């Protein structure tokens, strides 16, 4: 049994279940989540997501579990989502070949990355973002447990970035529509 591959499969099933609960399902929400997670495993959706997107980050998995438990939304707030999008644009762009530096390589022997996370954690604590700090801590524990060869993979993944893109895009459209409505009212 390849534990790392098993993690990727099961985590993608949970992420799919959490995505389904974003639909307006009313009282059927919990049952739909269970059915979607099961279907993802049985109907080949989770292997397809695993093949296309790779293993989800622990950040995304925790947000998905939080969403499934009905405690919080899988979707990040607008400002963190926008920050993530800007960072991801730079990170993925350079990691995929723009310029001579590959920041992804820093995640294999992640001493510098771990050091950089200390002020990030301090800022989260200072701003009373305990939940984000807990998520970051669990990401690090998952890396320490050997689930990820590269620390970056524990922190973020393309599906998380797509969710951030959805949040920012939705907010942008809502703002645009609100401005048009306001203009018409005048």
């Amino acid at each position, binding site marked *: 049994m390849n534990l790392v591959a098993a993690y990727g499969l099961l985590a993608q099933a949970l992420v799919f279940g959490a995505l389904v609960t974003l639909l307006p399902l009313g009282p059927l929400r919990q049952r739909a989540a269970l059915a979607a997670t099961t279907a993802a495993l049985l109907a080949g959706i989770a292997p*397809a997501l695993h093949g296309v997107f790779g293993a989800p980050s622990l950040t995304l998995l925790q947000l998905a579990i939080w969403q499934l438990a009905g405690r919080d939304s899988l979707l990040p707030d607008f400002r963190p989502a926008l920050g993530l999008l800007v960072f991801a644009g730079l990170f993925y762009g350079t990691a995929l070949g723009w310029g001579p530096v590959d920041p992804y390589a820093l995640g294999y022997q992640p001493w510098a990355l771990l050091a950089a996370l200390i002020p990030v954690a301090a800022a989260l604590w200072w701003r009373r973002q*305990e939940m984000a700090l807990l998520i970051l801590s669990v990401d690090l524990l998952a890396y320490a447990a050997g689930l990820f060869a590269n620390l970056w993979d524990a922190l973020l993944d*393309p599906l998380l970035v797509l969710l951030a893109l959805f949040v920012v895009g939705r907010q942008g459209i809502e703002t645009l529509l609100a401005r048009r409505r306001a203009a018409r009212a005048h």
Partner: protein
Amino acid sequence: MTIGRWLAPLLFVLALGAAAWRAPLVDAPAFVPPPAAKPSTLPAEFRAERLPAAAESAHAASLAQLADGRIAAAWFAGSREGAADVAIWFALLGKDGWSQPRAIANRQSTAGSTFSHVRKLGNPVLYVEGSWLHLWYVSVAIGGWAGSALNHSVSTDAGTNWSPARRLSTSPLANISTLARTPPLPLADGGLGLPVYHEFLAKHGEWLRLSPTGQVVDKVRMGHERASLQPAVVAFDERHALALLRDSGPGRGQIQVAGSDDGGQSWPAGPALPIPNSNSSVALLRLPSGRLLLASNGASGRSELQLWLSADQGKTWQASRTVESSPDGGAEFSYPALLLSRDGRIHLAYTWRRQGIKHAMFTEAWLDGDTP
């Protein structure tokens, strides 16, 4: 004041400590120096034969010598490149010639061991390390070869049984676009340096440093003046190595060069070789005499497979032999793989008209001779 206010930073400190404890501690990189150069005493010799066919279309052979002396070959074959029925095939060269090929990995086995959807398979790479026979090969879930992920499997019984494939983490974007084509080099710490390449958005060579347990512990981008793929690497000593790369365009190009003088920690680009390369794979080998042997398609493209020699660590090259050529426009003799066996003979495997894999065995004296 909530418990979480202090629990979160406490957990972070613990997690940070655990992550730091787990982060790999690796020595400064160094290559295993090659054996001292000595002239080959073998007489001029050349033999060639096609391997038994595995399927209608075959491509991208790789060679390795097992501990018992047999030569192993792996390649991918199916109804056509990229088809769903393509598998990784394996055959052994013993006293009675090549064995019947056997599929050692296919879409189903790869999907089953990586728990993920697999659409097609490609380039295998073999490498022998003691009694371990390594196999790396690429798989694609969606799109073309730029969407490849790298899989690794091991056999400890000369290729009869293989461990379930494990996917290497090599890329942040869905772990895609890392492909292998050429064999690794042994490193001084017991690990391996695997030349790989990236071809999503940008095309360049990369150097994957693997720990003795097979974990990726570093990745270095090779410098490049032009889009370049499929680095073939030889080491000269602990610190110096040369990588020759396929020129991926645009237009007709030349063999691209990168070099390292720090054990593989960096690979700046060097001046391209004055040898034409029309977007085709190259193979590189250090001969017993210390000279370098290059196998590549030349000015005529993939219809002609040629050999070049260098006596000055790749600075200058002299044309040696044409292994195979054809005026037939559809002919393709490409994707060479080179291996030096322990008896001093040189083995070359290459794609033969996409219909099969051809194996040639020759000596250094044949390279220097003028007889056909």
